[in-house]
């Protein structure tokens, strides 16, 4: 098959078309699906931030849930205390999380795999305790994050969830479009070079430390945005909204998506949205005991993570592609 030449314009058009399709889809499905669409968009952004970091820059973070929390809190505080428009709150979320990420990333650039993983894990475990330290963060209850009702011009039957979905989906589309571009730019190539071989990259004139720090900063900013979107869909930020299991879920989503390619991100996001539903269906069949309902989602996510790492470590998409490439190669040899 002849590959369609991918230019900036065609990619932009693709995302515009996707947006139009989502617009019509959002009008046709029921409220629950619309809400799940908003969650899906949040996961797309969050997983993309992990893929950027792990797949393209070769660093692993177990603490992206914490960076999401930073973004969520930043957005909520801006909204509550300054009352700025939602878009500016989102931008603040990106900036604050990116700032935190750049501090962490400076340390991270000097750390290899396990050290970085442990450090970010420590962050994810410990960050919630900070919420109790400062009164501006609202302790265990957290803060309200109210993005406001949809504009009246949208019509009377335009629900709050639909408004969440629109904001979330539009944000996700913009982020994905931007990430696609940045990964094809000089920076994306630099990151991949560093992931491939640090020494070779250094010899080619790349500043390895700077490149890693930049990747971590960008990834953190995107994670912070995902945190703000998450805070919007549940209208609050609190320590319990960003549990350790969130960081784990994101990693599962990224591995399922295939960490080395951004295009699989929707698979990971769909799986994460579907898991609670599947778990719910199974636990209802098993008689809905409390043990089952609270633990089954976690069990499914972890089991999935292990299965994927063991069986299709590069993600199902990449596995299919390489299998097809192998077959094609065999065909030409004959």
């Amino acid at each position: 098959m002849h590959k369609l030449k991918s230019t900036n314009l065609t990619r932009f058009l693709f995302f515009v078309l996707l947006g139009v399709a989502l617009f019509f889809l959002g009008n046709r499905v029921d409220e629950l699906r619309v809400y799940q669409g908003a969650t899906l968009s949040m996961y797309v952004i969050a997983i993309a931030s992990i893929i950027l970091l792990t797949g393209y820059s070769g660093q692993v973070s177990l603490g992206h849930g914490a960076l999401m929390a930073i973004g969520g809190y930043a957005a909520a505080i801006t909204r509550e205390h300054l009352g700025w428009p939602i878009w500016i709150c989102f931008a603040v979320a990106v900036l604050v999380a990116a700032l935190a990420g750049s501090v962490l990333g400076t340390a991270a650039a000097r750390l290899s795999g396990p050290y970085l993983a442990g450090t970010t894990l420590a962050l994810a475990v410990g960050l919630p305790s900070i919420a109790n330290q400062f009164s501006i963060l609202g302790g265990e209850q957290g803060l309200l994050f109210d993005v406001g009702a949809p504009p009246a011009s949208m019509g009377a039957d335009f629900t709050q969830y639909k408004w969440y979905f629109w904001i979330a989906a539009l944000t996700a589309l913009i982020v994905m479009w931007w990430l696609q571009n940045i990964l094809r730019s000089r920076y994306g190539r630099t990151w991949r070079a560093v992931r491939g071989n640090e020494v070779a990259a250094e010899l080619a004139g790349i500043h390895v430390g700077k490149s890693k720090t930049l990747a971590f900063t960008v990834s953190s900013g995107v994670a912070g945005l995902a945190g703000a979107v998450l805070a919007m869909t549940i209208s609050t930020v609190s320590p319990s909204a960003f549990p350790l299991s969130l960081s784990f879920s994101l990693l599962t989503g990224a591995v399922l998506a295939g960490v080395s390619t951004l295009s699989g991100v929707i698979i990971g996001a769909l799986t994460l949205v579907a898991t609670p539903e599947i778990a719910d269906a199974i636990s209802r069949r098993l008689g809905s005991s409390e043990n089952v309902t609270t633990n089954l989602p976690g069990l499914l996510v972890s089991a999935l993570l292990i299965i994927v790492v063991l069986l299709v470590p590069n993600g199902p998409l990449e596995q299919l592609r390489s299998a097809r490439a192998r077959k094609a190669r065999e065909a030409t040899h004959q």
Partner: protein
Amino acid sequence: MYQFINTIFIGITSGAIYSLMAIALVLVWRSTRVVNFAQAGMALLSTYIGYEFIQRFHSFWLALFLAMVAGAGIGALVDSIFMRTLFRRVAHGPIAGVAPIIATLGLLGLIRASLGLAVGNSDVSIRPPVSNVGYTISGHTLAFSPLKLVIVSAAVFLMIALSILFSKTNIGLSLRASAFSPEIARLAGVRVDRVRTLGWAIAGAAGAAAGMLQTPSGTGALSPDSLDFSLLLVFGFIAAVIGGLESLIGAVLGGVLLGLVLAFVLTYMSGSLVFITAFVLLIIVLLVRPQGIIGMNRGRRA
């Protein structure tokens, strides 16, 4: 003055527990070059097994021993079934470097969720085997009780036993050899796979001891989603990194140092600063002295 002494006691006791966890992490790191994030899950599972034995035999000491045996079994199983498969299947590709991290993390989640599924998320409690009421000296109650004495001695005993094992026995020699260079060790006739599994088993036992000793010395409550075990993992990791992630003595020193620093923060500053302090300490060590306080191999990059 008494407050100062008590703070030191508290620091040493909690430090001893962090040391045990750090020892477990160091052992696995030395034998397989993996930081085993599932160690907290394995310790949790072993502690639950220990709890079951306490219910059956009414003896904490027997239960501690059996929990450590169970922990060793779990460690050996995880390595021989799970990690070996992982290393065989994910040797190359973009994810090869991070796959063990992701896999052990998945295992942590799996153990926690399955435990929750099996026993429920409500707390069970392990009562201290000996009194946890502090010794009294001339009217002042010290923050050092028979239980704490037991915890510290257990950690010291384990460390000495392991040091002897590593430096004086053939098993220790082959453990060190396979960590240093698997290829050469294999040529020299060391069965590297078995030796690695042994490393995991000892680590499992050390982790089980950490879990069994931590639970009664804290609140006594045990639950599958226990934050204490997440913190145990994180503090154990920080202690191991302070010690350089390579050396057992470093792990113990790192654990005690971390315990002392955190105890002083807790007593003289604020309880909610404890975690931030630990995190900052970790970052400082990683930036300033990534080879750890023992620092044998200067050439390694963190």
